[in-house]
């Protein structure tokens, strides 16, 4: 359901006064770019970029019953989380379709759940419907906090001088709590949606602008650029990370979307389990990467053809700034999923030759992987 008015993050005024081009996204007014998408993209790949991701939904849970509650509504095995560890997970409906993809954080005071902006109402509804008497505390923290992503090879050097805990030892998909700028409480995680090393910071809304400005100052010597949703999309796309509304939806099962690894059918009962068992046996379609021969972009909805027969649909497509190729992700019949398979894309009436390629399109060099 649409929110009555568009929401603004605590950094909205900053974006507007610094050349951010504002667009509506998932019920929020967000900057799509400040300079160009390609410049911001390259800044993250080669140096460092900072993103306002405060539009993401944030919920906290603590107290009796919350673990069982989270197990019921998510597909991954929450009980397997170590302290200060983060898990990619899914929220499924009874048919095994996806309500959202989420992150579940386990920390010393309980759990944090981060979901997509546009799905916050659906996630809330699912949580409330399946609470089943869990008496612990549950709060939507989205409006009272801000979330900032610092991504790229210069992320560590940018954030460390501002934070009172060592960042380097934090492993991928782990978090630590500490203070930014001496007194701003923060949850800092080694996570991101760009395919680069980096950190995501959750702070109180009233600290957002102070922290944001400090990151820009600290990152200046690393060549930092404020980066918008446009670059966030091209970056996640190259890394083949799924985006809800594109690679994931209520009509797409997790096995087709290649996120079946986040479904633990043997963890005990949870919503959607029986349907998901069936989808695992026969996902129907599968997500593939496609490389076009020409430069035309095959955007979401483009039909994938084998000769004249439709065998799939594009979920996302763009011109990759890193590979300098027009690339797409698509859901296709499994017999067309092998790398090297030639296919044709119907791009607004133009027949564009393409071939199946391995995902991800881009993987960062091993030296910078943690």
């Amino acid at each position: 359901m649409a929110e009555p008015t568009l929401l603004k993050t605590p950094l909205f005024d900053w974006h507007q006064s610094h050349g951010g081009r504002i667009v509506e996204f998932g019920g929020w007014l967000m900057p799509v770019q400040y300079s160009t998408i390609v410049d911001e993209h390259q800044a993250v790949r080669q140096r460092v970029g900072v993103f306002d991701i405060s539009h993401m939904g944030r919920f906290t849970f603590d107290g009796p019953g919350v673990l069982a509650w989270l197990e019921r509504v998510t597909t991954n095995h929450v009980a397997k989380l170590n302290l200060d560890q983060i898990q990619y997970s899914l929220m499924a409906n009874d048919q095994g379709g996806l309500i959202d993809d989420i992150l579940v954080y386990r920390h010393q005071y309980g759990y944090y759940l981060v979901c997509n902006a546009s799905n916050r109402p659906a996630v809330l509804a699912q949580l409330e419907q399946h609470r089943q008497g869990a008496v612990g505390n549950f709060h939507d923290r989205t409006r009272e906090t801000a979330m900032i992503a610092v991504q790229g090879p210069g992320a560590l050097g940018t954030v460390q001088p501002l934070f009172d805990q060592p960042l380097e030892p934090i492993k991928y998909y782990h978090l630590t709590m500490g203070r930014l700028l001496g007194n701003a409480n923060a949850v800092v995680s080694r996570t991101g949606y760009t395919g680069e090393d980096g950190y995501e910071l959750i702070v109180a809304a009233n600290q957002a602008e102070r922290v944001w400005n400090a990151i820009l100052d600290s990152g200046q010597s690393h060549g930092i650029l404020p980066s918008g949703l446009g670059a966030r999309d091209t970056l996640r796309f190259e890394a083949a990370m799924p985006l809800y509304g594109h690679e994931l939806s209520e009509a797409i099962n997790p096995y087709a979307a290649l996120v079946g690894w986040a479904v633990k059918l043997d963890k005990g009962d949870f919503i959607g389990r029986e349907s998901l068992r069936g989808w695992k046996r026969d996902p129907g379609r599968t997500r593939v990467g496609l490389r076009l021969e020409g430069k035309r972009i095959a955007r979401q909805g483009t039909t994938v053809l084998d000769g004249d027969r439709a065998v799939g649909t594009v979920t996302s497509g763009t011109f990759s700034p890193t590979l300098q190729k027009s690339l797409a992700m698509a859901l296709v019949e499994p017999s067309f999923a092998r790398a090297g398979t030639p296919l044709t894309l119907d791009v607004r009436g133009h027949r564009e030759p393409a071939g199946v390629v391995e995902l991800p399109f881009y993987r960062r060099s091993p030296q910078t992987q943690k």
Partner: protein
Amino acid sequence: MDPTQLLYSPTHEWVYLKDLTATVGISRFAVDQLTDLIMIELPAVGTRLVTGKSFGEIESVKAVSDLYAPMGGEVTEVNTAIVENVQLLTDDPYGVGWLIKLKVDDAAEISELMDFAAYEKKLAEEAH
């Protein structure tokens, strides 16, 4: 070309008319709005253009946009350099980034276009 001496369509194409030959491009404003240009498709020499109808398309990372004929006529020349390298259009939309030349059917159509001052005024109004 000097942008102050050109005439503009509401869809951000510019025209320089000399005798019956119109050189057509798109404005700096249009290029700045699109950003991140990927490719441009232009009609072949000899194609008949109808005023206000699409004669090609320009693709950026964000979206694909139609190009609209500011005047009717027959395409006599196509700037293949920008088809090869669309960066030329980003760098210099009023010079090496021109799109096509056409022999116009009716030079009087030029009166439907805006001069630079009127175009600037329209852009300023739309920004508010």
